[in-house]
């Protein structure tokens, strides 16, 4: 039986920002169902990497393949299978939680009962009809998680997913975006211990360049610390 195709393949991915380099020559493979954790200081290129994988940014050179499709040309084919969670929740503050999710559901061709199911699971059912600008930060984050997994994506791209979440809220979202969800995940993290605990593969970025990329058993805490110096 042939091994399932890799979910993400990068070869020499480069992306510039003006004259600076945001990502330089990043090469790695993420098998389906595994978790890649990306470490690095601010400005190292973690968010850029996520945005490239989400088809929001084009690579300037190199090869990017997500779920077997080459980006940017075949980006349209995989967009519906990728879920992105970033610092910005991508929600309209004047609409209610339910309306926001229904808007995204229409855009992704997802039935409304999925919206109700997710609202129930993250504990937002009672506040679903209140406008998002009345939500606390933790509630906004929970709603954003719903938005990211609404269409049941095969690949999850998570930029510091547990920010703004208290332990109770984290427990609620964990089955949706955690390792147990069975999806391929790319997660950025500033926390060496926590990050290594959930990783199958670890990538360290510094100034856009790869400091290390290896299966998690081969990576030590010290290497991660070194990125920040």
């Amino acid at each position, binding site marked *: 039986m042939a091994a399932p195709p890799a979910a993400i393949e990068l070869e020499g991915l480069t992306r510039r920002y003006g004259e600076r380099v945001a990502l330089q020559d990043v090469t790695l493979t993420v098998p389906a169902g595994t978790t890649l954790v990306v470490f690095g200081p601010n400005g190292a290129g973690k968010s850029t990497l996520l945005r490239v994988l989400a088809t929001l940014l084009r690579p300037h050179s190199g090869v990017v393949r997500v779920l077997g499709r080459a980006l940017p040309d075949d980006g349209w084919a995989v967009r*519906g299978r990728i879920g992105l969670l970033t610092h910005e929740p*991508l929600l309209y503050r*004047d*609409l209610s939680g339910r*309306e926001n999710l229904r808007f995204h*559901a229409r855009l992704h061709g997802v039935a409304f009962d999925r919206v109700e199911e997710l609202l129930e699971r993250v504990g937002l059912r009672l506040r679903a009809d209140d406008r998002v600008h009345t939500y606390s930060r933790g509630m906004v984050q929970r709603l954003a998680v719903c938005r990211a997994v609404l269409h049941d994506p095969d690949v999850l791209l998570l930029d510091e997913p547990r920010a703004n979440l208290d332990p109770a809220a984290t427990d609620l979202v964990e089955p949706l975006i955690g390792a147990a969800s069975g999806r391929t995940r790319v997660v950025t993290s500033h926390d060496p211990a926590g990050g290594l605990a959930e990783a199958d593969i670890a990538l360290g970025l510094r100034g856009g360049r790869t400091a290390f990329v290896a299966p998690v058993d081969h990576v030590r805490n010290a290497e991660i610390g070194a990125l920040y110096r």
Partner: protein
Amino acid sequence: MTTRAELPHTESPAGPSRPRGDEPPFVPLRVAVAALLRKELGLELRAPQAVPAMALFSITTLVVFHFALQRGQVDGDLASGVLWVTLLFAAMLGISRLFVADHEEGGLDGFLLAPTDRTAMLVAKAFGLFAFLAAVEVVAVPAFALMLLGPSPSIAAYGQLAVLLLLADAGIALVGTMVGAMAVQTRTRDLIVPLMALPLLIPVVIGAAKGTTPLLATAGPHSVEVRWLFVLGLYDLVFGLLAFALFDYLIED
């Protein structure tokens, strides 16, 4: 559980909750446009900002015209000019605000992640702006007729005016969507919009103003010359094609 000002209820999308299979998920254009338009109009109904401001601005402009022109009544080409300048300047306000909410609240990214044609955003925004302009005209044209217009045009004349308004609004909506999308990325948004949009809209002003003049004249045939309908129609066609071809480049990253 009661909801406040809930958007009109529609059926849930037909697709299964968890699409599976090798077929890349894709949402048809009309579905995406409908979703975007609901959001657009829903937001404006929920938290009205653009339309009331534009309507109020148009009435204020009419008052300014009264004092600036030092007349109690206008007719013919002067009336036509006053009406169209008023509508045009109100449109500038609407264009400036068109993409602001999306830009600030990350709505554009949310749309870009959806498996649908990017043109949906163009269609939805243009229709939205068109709807806002029509709503403003429902206020501004009667206000103009009451406050400054000398002659009383017949129903037929108003009907022809409505046709001109529709054609002109289509052109303004198309140009406005393009310019609005460009301007939202700049740091001098409110300056760039009128500077860029007004020269581009001069053919619309020409066609609309010349076309409206006989309708608002005291005497003479109260009908629009076909020539001006042709100018407006041609303009809408050209800019429609341009917008269709170029808009995707404005919203991708």
